[in-house]
């Protein structure tokens, strides 16, 4: 039996990551799923959260993903995410600033459409922060 998982992270724009891993943790809608080699075939939608790529001897890679689904066959795991970025590239202060900006936008919004848009952006920023907190915990 193969003892690695072929992990692929794909966004609509391009293939973001293709790697071999010993275990990958995926944030499924009904809970995190640890994918080891030989996992039963599964398709699940994902919630905004952190994908962890575990590899012996290499550093743990953490990526933030939002919106999409994961497809698991015995030896491969494909995560299709609408948005994905490496956790190390996320600047916490910038996100917090954005969150603050969004809150101000919501206050200043003159019509429902702009408010909805700002609230959307705020929720997104909050999701990222939430994920960062979870990762730190």
């Amino acid at each position, binding site marked *: 039996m193969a003892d690695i998982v072929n992990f692929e992270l794909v966004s609509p724009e391009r293939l973001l990551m293709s790697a071999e891993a010993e275990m990958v943790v995926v944030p499924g809608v009904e809970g995190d799923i640890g994918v080891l080699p030989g996992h039963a*075939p599964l398709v699940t*939608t994902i919630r905004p959260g952190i994908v962890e790529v575990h590899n012996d001897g290499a550093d743990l890679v953490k990526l933030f993903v939002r919106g999409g689904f994961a497809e698991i066959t015995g030896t491969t795991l494909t995560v299709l995410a609408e948005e994905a970025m490496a956790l190390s590239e996320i600047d916490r202060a910038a996100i917090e600033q954005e969150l603050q900006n969004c809150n101000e936008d919501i206050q200043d919004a003159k019509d429902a459409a702009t408010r909805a848009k700002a609230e959307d952006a705020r929720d997104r920023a909050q999701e990222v922060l939430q994920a960062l907190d979870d990762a730190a915990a």
Partner: protein
Amino acid sequence: MPSLKDLKIRIDSVKSTQKITKAMKMVAAAKLRRAQEAAESARPYAERMDQVLASLGGSMVGQVGAPKLLAGTGADETHLLVVATSERGLCGGFNTNIIKAANRKIRRLLADGKTVKILCVGRKGYQALRREHQSRIVDSIDMSGVKTLGYGDASGIAERLLDMFEAEEFDVCTVFYAKFKSALEQIVTEQQLIPAAIEEEDASASADLGGAVYDYEPDESEILEDLLPRNVGVQIFRALLENAASEQGARMSAMDNATRNAGDMIEKLTLTYNRTRQAVITSELIEIISGAEAL
């Protein structure tokens, strides 16, 4: 017979035109490469999406309670056509071909007594279609501010479509765009977006599972409900990327032709110029000689 000076002016003007078309061709070639790369790197996502949808949707088609995006509203009365064109002209038959195809479809639908609504993406399509179908155009989306096409641009349009679908403003949605085959060949394609046209699951997609069946988490219908709206975005994104590559390809070959034509024109004009010059010299000589003989 044009004078020598007139000819000179014409040659110069054609020469400067040639310079412009040559530059445009080169710019288009560079942009084409980028657009092609973008289209290619977007392919894996769309392909996976297709596969999963095919295996999920195949079992859902025809079932009671299948999502509307898959099964349709049950009616076939109002059609929404999304016509994706470019923002700029000078790209050969690119826009004309797309608009022609859309117009054909509109006429056919109208002849069948259906209601037609149009959503234009890109300025050129709007300009051409508003002459005939002003009342049918729901909106026109301006893409001129978009430098590099991102998924956000496509998902914005998709959201718009889904809202309209929710509000039951149309039953069937079709998108028109040009599929990129090569710089010389772009194929105008009409693709049905809503209800989703799902191909039958092919054997190769499930072969690597060794006949095993996927588990679904949450269950199939919920995943499908989550995926179908995403699929609309992905399909639009794909259409826009293909369109962008096709536009640059079409422009490149159009400008290549124009450069060559200008070259031919310069050759012809230069020939006439030289002949005329020779004729002038000859007639001057004759005048001098016959003048000398008369003495």
